Structure formats: C-alpha cells, structure tokens
C-alpha cells in the first residue's frame, strides 16, 4: 500500500473533488441550450403542418435545420436522462428496483438519442 495516510488525513487532503455537482450543472447547461432548440422545434412543427413528404425531406436535409435538430436530440436526451434519474432516485426507495430503473433510464435515453442522430444523418447524407 503506497498511501500511508490515515483515512481522516486522506479526507482532509482531498476535500471536494469539485465534481459532485456535475449532473446539476449539466442539467442547467442543457436546459439553457434547450430553450432556443425547443422554440426551433415548435417553429419547425408549425411550418411543416400539412407538408408533404418531399417538403419534409428537403427541410430536414438542410444543414441549417439538421444541425440544430442534432443538437436538440443530444441536448434533449441528456437533459431528460438526468431529470428522470432525479425522479427515480426520489421515488424508488428499494435498492434493487432503483438500480434496474436507473439502468433502463440510461438505455432508453441512449437508444432514443442514437436513433434520432441516425435518422437526421441519414437524411442529411442522402440529400
């Protein structure tokens, strides 16, 4: 064992690693990003109301649409993953089910994120 310090001295020496508020901070950061991105989504949905397939394709194929849409998918899924984790941690008290639900939350968010990115990139590359 290299570390000869006592546990107390180790705690005193370490102090805060300054990473304890990582999720809190990313939740705010993605929230700030989501404000303009959500407005962009609402505008897009209104603009595309009743539009035919070709119009939707050419709209989503435009880099000025595809890039914010990618940002929305990534920032949105990251934000929702953290938000759902907080809810699960608040309301599920049993350790086993909590770990399972937290894992499912991560899997769900990852699948949704990757599926969205895949679709946007596919449209972008084909157009």
């Amino acid at each position, binding site marked *: 064992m290299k570390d000869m310090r006592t546990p107390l001295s180790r705690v005193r020496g370490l102090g805060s690693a300054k990473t304890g508020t990582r999720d809190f901070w990313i939740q*705010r950061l993605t929230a700030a990003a989501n404000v303009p991105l959500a407005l962009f989504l609402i505008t897009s949905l209104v*603009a595309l109301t009743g539009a035919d*397939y070709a119009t*939707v394709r050419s709209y989503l194929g435009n880099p000025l649409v595809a890039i914010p849409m990618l940002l929305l998918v990534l920032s949105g899924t990251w934000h929702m993953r953290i938000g759902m984790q907080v809810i699960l941690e608040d309301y599920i008290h049993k350790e086993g089910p909590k770990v399972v639900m937290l894992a499912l939350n991560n899997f769900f968010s990852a699948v949704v994120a990757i599926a969205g990115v895949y*679709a946007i990139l596919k449209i972008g590359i084909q157009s």
Partner: protein
Amino acid sequence: MSLEAQLRPRPLSPHLTIYRRTMTMMMSIVHRLTGTALYFGMLLLTWWLIAAAEGQKSYRLFESWIGSAAGKFILLCYTWALIHHLLGGLRHFAWDIGQGFDLPTANLMARATLIGSVILTVLVRTIGIWVRGAL
C-alpha cells in the same frame, strides 16, 4: 435495516398529501409531470425523424397516425407540455441566480407559467392553422 431501526422506526416527515396545496407546489409537480411526458414524447420526435429517413411508405404511416384525432390531441398536449416545461425552466433559472424567492414573486411566476403556457399553446395552434390552412 439495522436492528435498532427495526425496533424503533425513525420519525418520517409528513407526506405530500398533508400539506395545503399552493400554486408553487402544484407548478413544481406539473413541471415534473410535463418533464416525464416529454421524456416519452421524445419517442414521437424520434418516430417522426426515423419515418422521414426511412422513406415515403413509413412516413405515410406516421402521417396517418399524427393526422388522426388521437394524434392531433397528443401533439397538442406535447406542445403544451413543452411550453409549460420551458416556462417552468425559466422560473428555475431565476431561482438559480437567487431571484424570485419571495412569496409574491414566486406565486406570480407560478401563475405566469400556467397561464402563459396555455396562451402560448393556443397561439402556436392558431398560427399553425392560419399559416398552413390545415389542422
């Protein structure tokens, strides 16, 4: 659970149902509910993108669903949830910088979140109908 905890359960704070319902409390709950709705609503956005990417046939399936009465209603609810959660988020930004903790301001912001979200949703829907001439 330790033996002592089993013999003598620790006192718990009273749960949600015991408190008088206040505007700020309700908006806090609704913020979580809309967040959860948007969590699953993300599937709708993903379906739309995948359908558009996969071709005309899959897009027609999405279109027929979103064009149905149920689809339109869910899209309307999604729009409201998104706007409500967005406004609720702005409220949290105010609190994050240490503003708006006094009761009159907090109540005003809570009321503005609810009323604002309904007005903006109606506005978005109206513009949608007006611009595109379609429901």
